[in-house]
């Protein structure tokens, strides 16, 4: 549950290192043109067997874990593919925060852009949180987003967020709108940039134009200087 700047709920342990975004959101769930339905795909191969039946032994499938909102996991969580679907899926499933010793870089930015809280703590703290999370009785966690403090049965720790990410966690912001306040500066920058580096201007549209349209049925006009 999140009330204002307090996140309070149950955590579950996922003792897996390098849990990549392919596993967090497998390929068969990436065929949408919107963000809908990704809760179904979250950690699919871990949650379900090849026939689509729930694996009863997987932690998130246990009845007492039905309302888990926080994951405690191994290092480099979210490494691999840039797919933001992984973040959307976690949120749609009801996950509000993930705690780990480290996170994949692109995943980290994606999470921040969606207000999914990521808490980075040293291995030892994560190991103790994992132990607390292991038993439903001790799995309650309390996270204060203002003071950046995590408390569980046996852990009381502070974590850090960059100032910018901290603000983004505390209030929903229109990041594009904020950057668009720089539009005049961006356009001015581009003019100067292209004056000194004209070979960087409209490279995509010029190249496409020069290549012409090369439908397969009509053979090929350009082979590129590949050799």
């Amino acid at each position, binding site marked *: 549950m999140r009330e204002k700047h307090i996140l309070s709920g149950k955590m579950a342990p996922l003792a897996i290192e390098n849990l990549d975004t392919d596993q967090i959101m497998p390929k068969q769930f990436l065929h949408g043109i919107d963000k809908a339905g990704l809760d179904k795909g979250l950690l699919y191969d871990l949650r379900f067997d090849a026939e689509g039946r729930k694996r009863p032994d997987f932690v998130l499938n246990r009845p007492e874990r039905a309302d888990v909102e926080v994951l405690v996991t191994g290092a480099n969580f979210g490494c691999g593919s840039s797919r933001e679907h992984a973040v959307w899926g976690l949120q749609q499933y009801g996950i509000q925060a993930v705690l780990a010793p480290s996170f994949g870089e*692109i995943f980290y930015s994606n999470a921040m852009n969606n207000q999914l809280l990521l808490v980075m703590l040293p291995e030892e703290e994560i190991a103790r949180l994992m132990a607390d999370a292991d038993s439903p009785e001790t799995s309650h966690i309390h996270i204060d987003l203002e003071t950046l403090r995590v408390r569980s049965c046996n852990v009381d720790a502070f974590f850090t967020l960059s100032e910018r990410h901290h603000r983004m966690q505390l209030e929903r912001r229109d990041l594009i709108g904020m950057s668009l306040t720089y539009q005049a500066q961006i356009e001015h920058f581009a003019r100067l940039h292209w004056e000194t580096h004209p070979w960087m201007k409209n490279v995509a549209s010029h190249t496409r134009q020069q290549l012409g349209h090369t439908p397969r049925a009509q053979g090929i006009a350009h082979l590129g200087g590949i050799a």
Partner: protein
Amino acid sequence: MNRTLYRKLVDAHTVAQLDEQNVLLFCDLHLMNEYTSPQAFAGLDEHGRRVLMPGQNVAVVSHVIPTQPGTIRVIREAAPALQASNLRKNCEQHDIPLFDTQDALQGIEHVVAPEHGMIRPGMVVICGDSHTTTYGALGALGFGIGTSEVEHVLATQTLVYRLAKDMRIRVDGVLPVGTTAKDLILMVIGHIGAQGARGHVIEFCGTAFEAMSIESRFTVCNMAVEAGARGALIAPDRKAVKYVLERATDLHGVARDAALQHWETLHSDEAAVFHVEHRFDASDAAPHVTWGTSPDQVIPIGGAIPDPARQTSAPMRRSTEQALRYTGLAAGAPLEGTAIQHVFIGSCTNARIEDLRAVAQVVRGRHVAKGVRAMVVPGSGAVKRQAEAEGIASLLMDAGFEWREPGCSMCLAMNGDILADGVRCASTTNRNFEGRQGRGAITHLMSPAMAAAAAVTGTITDVRRLETHHA
């Protein structure tokens, strides 16, 4: 002030310093695909925003496209077909150049963009795909972004960019015969780990990279992200400049001279300081093959599979055990001789013409082993036609390989090219994650030559044992 190449590129693209850690970074080229961009265009429309600089953006249908041989390419499944048509609609609406399904030049975005001269030294290139680090091979700062950031770039041609730290990896010496750029980068990742470069942009330097072709450098920079890097760079040299000038046909006269002058400055200053430095000797490299489910779980072909009991930390023991359980291999056993059922030659890591030539060299005079299915998916339409013109396609088909149409294909298996449970695959791709090539399928990453050796022997084999038959 002494600066690294990375800092020079960032400084040259900084529109505004937002705070100590973040800048508003101008992006010269934004590549898009059909599966990480739809929600970004939708967001743009929702807010009534436009694409600020359409000519700096380009899209390629790459991930969902089927690769079955045939002249007309049809996406039969409704959902991926909609992803492709939706991309076309978005590009038309916003005037963004597109390499569409039926285009003879279609392919993997990271193969298509450089082969037509769109990637140039000194650029910042971003894409909703983690392997955008590839472009460091030409001295361009490339990195992957998420869909929220795709929307941000479309609307502003900039990103709010968190500065990375500098790492330098120097590799001197000569790669032994039979080893390639892929083996070297796998060796490096094995040493520094899957998060060894997390938070850093790697600059690769040393005689090993100087000796490499540009295509080999693409392979190295492509896989830097598998060490967690936020970017990879190799200072552009004469080879890089030649590669670009041969393809960037608009570059002539004064613009060409200005470009050449600028590219001369694209190197780290002599006294520039890196936060982290690593050194390796290329002559230590051997053909490398992954045994586990993370790209850093890799050994030289003559090595033994690690023993979980000998790992130094609990997480390492845990992940070694997990990986061995998934890959069905035994601790202490050799990897060489392990039977494979599938070979995949493709991906933005290793599906360029040089890679296909390396495969052909091993396969010449041989045939795909009984019981093995071997697929070649060229990186682009241009690569495919080049290989056909050189006789590589017919050589491989005669040897029992499937010669398919270009795309990302079985690297991530979201286009229907997918492995069945338990199938073991020798793959020239970049990720051996659990389930990446299909639920329960086992991926062994290796070089194109090593994958070719696996195809003709049916087992993971040291390619150096095979005699090469010259044409």
